């Protein structure tokens, strides 16, 4: 089974044998991989019908629900790891979603595109909404309605009580880069955060 490069990167932060909740699990590839190779158990959450059926056909437990409204279904600290991979920007209530993740998981992994990336800033300077391989939709039909810069996102993590335990920064083609903190928000196209709920 092959994982998308960003999924492979996310999987590195999931401890073997942990119980995982993958929010917006798509076709269940990450969960299947974690179950087969890493001895994990857990649940995928998805709402797109064809993805739901495919996830079930992979033998991944799949609960169909709306991440924006229905995360109450999961108990406090009921998962070791909650994954939100390239989904946050498409939620209606990112703050609520992150708060719920902090409640449900002992560790949260959030992977996001960075709107502070210099190319996006440049496109905006020239008077247009940024588009890229990661964000291929025109502004009027994009599902990505809550894009943020890394700086803004880190503020929100703090507000909802999530401490950044580790941050990994990536080039547009998914290569890991060690950008210095002061230019991270300018240079990174994507980021993965490993977060721990405070207190």
């Amino acid at each position, binding site marked *: 089974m092959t994982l998308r490069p960003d999924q492979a990167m996310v999987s590195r932060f999931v401890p073997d044998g942990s119980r995982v909740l993958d929010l917006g699990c798509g076709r269940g590839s990450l969960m299947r991989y974690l179950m087969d190779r890493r001895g994990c*158990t857990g649940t995928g959450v998805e709402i797109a019908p064809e993805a739901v*059926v*495919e996830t079930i056909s992979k033998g991944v*437990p799949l609960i*169909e629900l709306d991440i924006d409204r229905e995360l109450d*279904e999961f108990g406090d600290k009921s998962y070791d790891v909650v994954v939100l991979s390239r989904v946050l920007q498409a939620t209606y209530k990112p703050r609520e979603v992150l708060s719920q993740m902090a409640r449900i998981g002992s560790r949260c992994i959030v992977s996001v595109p960075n709107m502070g990336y210099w190319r996006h800033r440049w496109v905006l300077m020239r008077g247009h909404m940024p588009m890229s391989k990661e964000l291929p939709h025109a502004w009027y039909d994009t599902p990505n309605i809550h894009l943020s810069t890394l700086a803004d996102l880190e503020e929100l993590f703090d507000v909802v009580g999530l401490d950044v335990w580790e941050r990994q920064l990536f080039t547009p083609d998914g290569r890991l880069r060690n950008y210095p903190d002061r230019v991270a928000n300018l240079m990174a196209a994507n980021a993965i955060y490993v977060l721990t709920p405070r207190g």
Partner: protein
Amino acid sequence: MSQRPQSAEESSVGIVETQSVRLFDQDNPLVLASGAVVPEVDVAYETYGTLDETGSNAIFICHALTGDAHAAGRHRSEDHRPGWWDTMIGPGKPIDTDRFFVIADNLIGGCQGTTGPASTNPATGRPYGLDFPLLQIADFVTVHRALLDHLGVRRLLSVIGGSMGGMQALQWALSYPEQVGSAVIIAASSRLNAQNIAFSAVARESIMRDPGFAGGRYLETGTSPDTGLSIARMMAHITYQSGQGMDQKFGRRYQFGEDATRGFGVDFAVESYLDYQGRIFLSRFDALSYLYLTRVMDYFDPFAEEDAAQALAEAGSPCLVLSFDSDWRFDTTHSRAIVRALEQQRVPVSFREIRSPWGHDSFLLTIEDYHATVAAFLRRVSVAAAQGRRDRGGVR
């Protein structure tokens, strides 16, 4: 399009026959969960498909309140209607009889071949009537399991049911997870709410207040609570459909045209439909069974014990829970409660709410998304079971 017409011939199990077997007798009576004893139990059942060499492809079908052992195919080629779940069971259908050995029976307490309150009490030589003991969902499972023993089937690939059938699937998985490889629980509930119980209460009152009921001795008095039973059925039929579905099917159409005389009879098409449903029900269902089987549901509450799902979680048997968005008899909150209880105890559980305008009855219909989900789930558990056998070092 949610509903497509079924071409019966291309994917039917064909001509089938209901079998009967005495599973409990004086030497080996049925002891119910309550401790009460039923000295003789005959069970009607049907099977479709073939049990494979390893005995690992068996699927058990649990029927709902008024179902029977005739789940698929036809008894005679001229039968107007096939078995009650023919949409789901057959060659190439989600419960694929080319791959699976399918077993369906009639519930104890029922009236279509299996022992129930209308059967003769061997102690008195008269029909049980209200002397028949109250039943629980667990008792249904006990009898299903006895049937499996009789058929020489030790383990199920899956146990599947809709509505009250889903309750049996759930109970079975909770109580005997090592026997149940997976469970599909459709449009069911683990705990009826006040409204659910209220509807059943009115149905029962309607039967018991019919003078023909004669205190449950109608089989001896030669009377029959036909009015009560048909009204119970008419009301139940309303709860099995959605407002939208009824509008789509009947709207405000007149039964006899615009110019017909108005009165208190069957003026609207929907009244004709209910009247018909109420009347045909009398030919196939017994009023006492209606009382007993509805009461079973009222008391069902398997998660009252906090660690009810612990054994199931340890066995790791996956469950699929499905609801329909227009179902208000057992709406999605019921299914979600089941999912929560299972998920919190770490049972591998999948859940979908299927879109359908047809209300509770949706579980009997051909709805693409619904069937695709059941088919995907069963394919997977069957592949995983085969894989598991290989991993354990060959076929046993």
